[in-house]
């Protein structure tokens, strides 16, 4: 699903956020991306979502080379990715329902279908009764779950999460991680960046550790193709 081939990312000013990163996340897998802050986790996710472009190397998403992607096709690629942020990026000028419905509106779903899918997504994150609430009135954990509902409402094949539990207490964090595991059971490929090693260890999914922009260890078992690179 995601293949990084010798990726380096150097920001203007010379800071190299990633250097020679190679890995492969097969379709239907869930993996964690760990490392200290500044290790390059966010940069890696941004490269997949085409928010940043690599300085060197190639990224393949579902077999498509993202390097060749012109900006007109970026929206099309992003529609197949659900992205979850640490600060959840909710829009406070509209209720929960409208926030979650955004991806469906963009993709031109029918009105009735939007209602059905938004409620299904809110149900999955346990917020079915909050659809009319304003996001600002919700707790941090609830807001994060609204963000997750928005990321999954259009059933993307790939889910990216950047520190989704960053501001949450351990109990809630665990719930959120279990939620991701459940989406993965239904076939969604999931990549979660998190520095919460203790929690990740409990979840028993493969881990890719980044350290200062390089891969320190990779528990993804795909030695057939990438054994040498890792």
């Amino acid at each position: 699903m995601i293949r990084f081939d010798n990726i380096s990312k150097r920001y203007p000013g010379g800071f190299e956020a990633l250097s020679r990163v190679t890995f492969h996340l097969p379709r239907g897998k869930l993996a964690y991306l760990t490392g200290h802050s500044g290790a390059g986790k966010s940069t890696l996710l941004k490269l997949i979502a085409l928010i940043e472009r690599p300085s060197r190397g190639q990224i393949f998403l579902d077999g498509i080379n993202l390097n060749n992607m012109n900006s007109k096709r970026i929206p099309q690629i992003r529609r197949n990715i659900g992205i979850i942020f640490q600060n959840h990026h909710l829009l406070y000028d509209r209720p929960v329902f409208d926030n979650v419905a955004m991806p469906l509106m963009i993709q031109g779903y029918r009105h009735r279908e939007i209602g059905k899918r938004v409620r299904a997504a809110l149900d999955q994150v346990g917020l079915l009764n909050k659809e009319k609430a304003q996001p600002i009135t919700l707790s941090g954990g609830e807001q994060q779950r609204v963000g997750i509902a928005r990321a999954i409402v259009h059933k993307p094949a790939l889910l990216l999460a950047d520190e989704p539990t960053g501001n949450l207490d351990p109990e809630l964090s665990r719930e959120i991680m279990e939620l991701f595991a459940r989406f993965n059971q239904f076939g969604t490929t999931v990549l979660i960046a998190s520095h919460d090693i203790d929690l990740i260890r409990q979840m028993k999914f493969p881990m890719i550790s980044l350290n200062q922009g390089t891969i320190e260890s990779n528990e993804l078992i795909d030695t057939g193709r990438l054994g040498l690179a890792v």
Partner: protein
Amino acid sequence: MSKRTGRGPKQNSRLVSYLTHHLQMFIASLGYLSRQPFSTLMTSAVIAIALALPAGLYIALDNASQLSAGWDGTTQISLFLKDNVSIEQAEKLAEKLRLDIEIEKVSIIDRDQGLKQFQQVSGFGDAIKFLDENPLPHVITVQPIVDQNRPDQVIHLVDALQEEALVELAQLDMQWVKRLYTLLQVAQRGVWIIGSLLGLAVLLIVGNTIRLDIQNRREAIEVSKLIGASNAFIRRPFLYTGMWYGISGGLLAWLLIAVSLGIMEDPVQKLAALYYSSYELSGLSSSDIVILIVISCFLGLGGSWMAVGRHLSDIEPS
């Protein structure tokens, strides 16, 4: 990622979803504006004033040229014939002139008739009785066909008539028409210039307002881009907002003009009455109103297009 190319059965067809989104944004942008009525009204009022000024001048010009429109019926060229020309020769010339396509009516005032008229209207009746002979020549009066927009044609006709062998003097008391016409032309140019400048101002006003809107909705734009909204999708609400600014500005301009005309009506009638005229101010015709609103609509659209083109691409998720 099988959805990349095809569309699911639960999605509208591309065209339907395109049109649906247009309709949604058409209404949503109106809703957005009505939720901040004060600033919407301010922007619309500025646009309205900028549009009402040239439109008002246009009406003033229109009225002025209507005022001068009366002259085509009364325009006469008097041909004072040479003293030695006989009445028969004069009739022949009149006959010839009747065939001219630029001439509507020709009539002859022979010298006796002329003298009689002169006695009646000049007030010199008694004095004229003491004259030994009639000092007046035969006169042919020519009423030209006047093209409202080309008073200079009349001037040419006068020049041509002056060339006639029997004519001593072709006189057209039209200097004032010529001057008025030229003045109106100058004013017309002025209105065009003012109109263009103020139209540009409307573009900039709408552009700036939309730029602020874009900045205010920066986060929504970023999020929309992140979840796969195309640029056209993001652009749409802003373009409709600009269009609404234009339309509301145009409507308000119409209102301003109507009110101003209402205020002017009474004194203008009083003034006209002093000239024994029943002149009435004419306002914007319905086609003028349509044109005004269409222009303002497009100015709003153009202004927002400028802003959107410049500023939307600056906003990328990070």
